[in-house]
């Protein structure tokens, strides 16, 4: 393998790792979200190198576009950029890092010595229409028709759930009910007047 190809792949991997670490460590949630956008875009480039142009474009438009815009919108809506400066305890932190590193070591050892990484040294030459949108659509509407339909139901229930959870009427009704409650109740029960939450 030529040195230039190695350099390009090494640079891509480095950007992926550095942006992920930046997401993990930045104090400001907006910077975290922007680091994650860069991470998703770089992973989309990796998808391109794996012969998956459709998935790469879906990644850019769905993840880096729609989902991260939703994240930024909620961060700014809640003013949550600097929320929770308080850090976790020291023992918790050490234990977390230990468990995560053990998991990574296990995965890497498996990949390098037992898994498929050993015998698959180079990307096989893919046929030109391997992952064309037409091929993906054909498979999606034949073999994967049932999961595709279930996906529609999941998206519908997510839309309904999101609208239900964020509407304001229910809260306002609860507040007026709480305001009316002492008026209706007789005065002899002051113990009942504890707040609702």
């Amino acid at each position, binding site marked *: 393998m030529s040195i230039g190809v190695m350099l390009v792949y090494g640079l891509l991997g480095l950007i992926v790792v550095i942006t992920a670490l930046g*997401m993990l460590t930045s104090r400001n949630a907006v910077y975290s979200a922007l680091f994650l956008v860069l991470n998703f875009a770089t992973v989309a480039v990796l998808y391109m190198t794996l012969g998956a142009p459709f998935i790469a474009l879906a990644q850019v438009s769905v993840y880096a576009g729609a989902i991260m815009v939703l994240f930024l919108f909620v961060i700014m809506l809640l003013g949550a950029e600097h929320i*929770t400066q308080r850090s976790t305890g020291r023992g918790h932190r050490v234990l977390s890092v230990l468990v995560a590193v053990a998991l990574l070591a296990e995965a890497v050892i498996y990949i390098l010595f037992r898994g498929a990484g050993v015998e698959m040294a180079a990307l096989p030459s893919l046929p030109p229409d391997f992952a064309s949108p037409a091929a993906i659509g054909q498979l999606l509407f034949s073999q994967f028709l049932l999961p595709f339909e279930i996906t529609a139901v999941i998206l519908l229930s997510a839309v309904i*759930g999101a609208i239900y959870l964020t509407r304001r009427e229910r809260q306002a009704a609860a507040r007026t009910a709480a305001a009316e409650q002492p008026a209706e109740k007789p005065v002899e029960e002051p113990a009942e007047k504890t707040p609702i939450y």
Partner: protein
Amino acid sequence: MPLSYYLILSAIMFLIGILGVLLRRNPLIMFMSLELMFNAANLAFVAFAAYHQALSGQLFVFFVMTVAAAEVAVGLALMVAIFRTRHTIDVDELSMLQG
């Protein structure tokens, strides 16, 4: 590039996602770390799809993306609702169900 390049990169991304969920106390960052873990799994899926020349792997990525989008919509809506009633989204403060 050998397949192990993509798999190790995916494992590192997954590790950083786990660390984000375990170490950070801001639920928005925890959600982003979750997305990072989804992304790591997707990268492994696409890599295997290419090296085994099986298109089903890419379709699984498609489904994972859809479910992740639904999960983010509901999760962020929950977070907005919690913030409205409690005026905080610190995960350590939200222990109402604790006895």
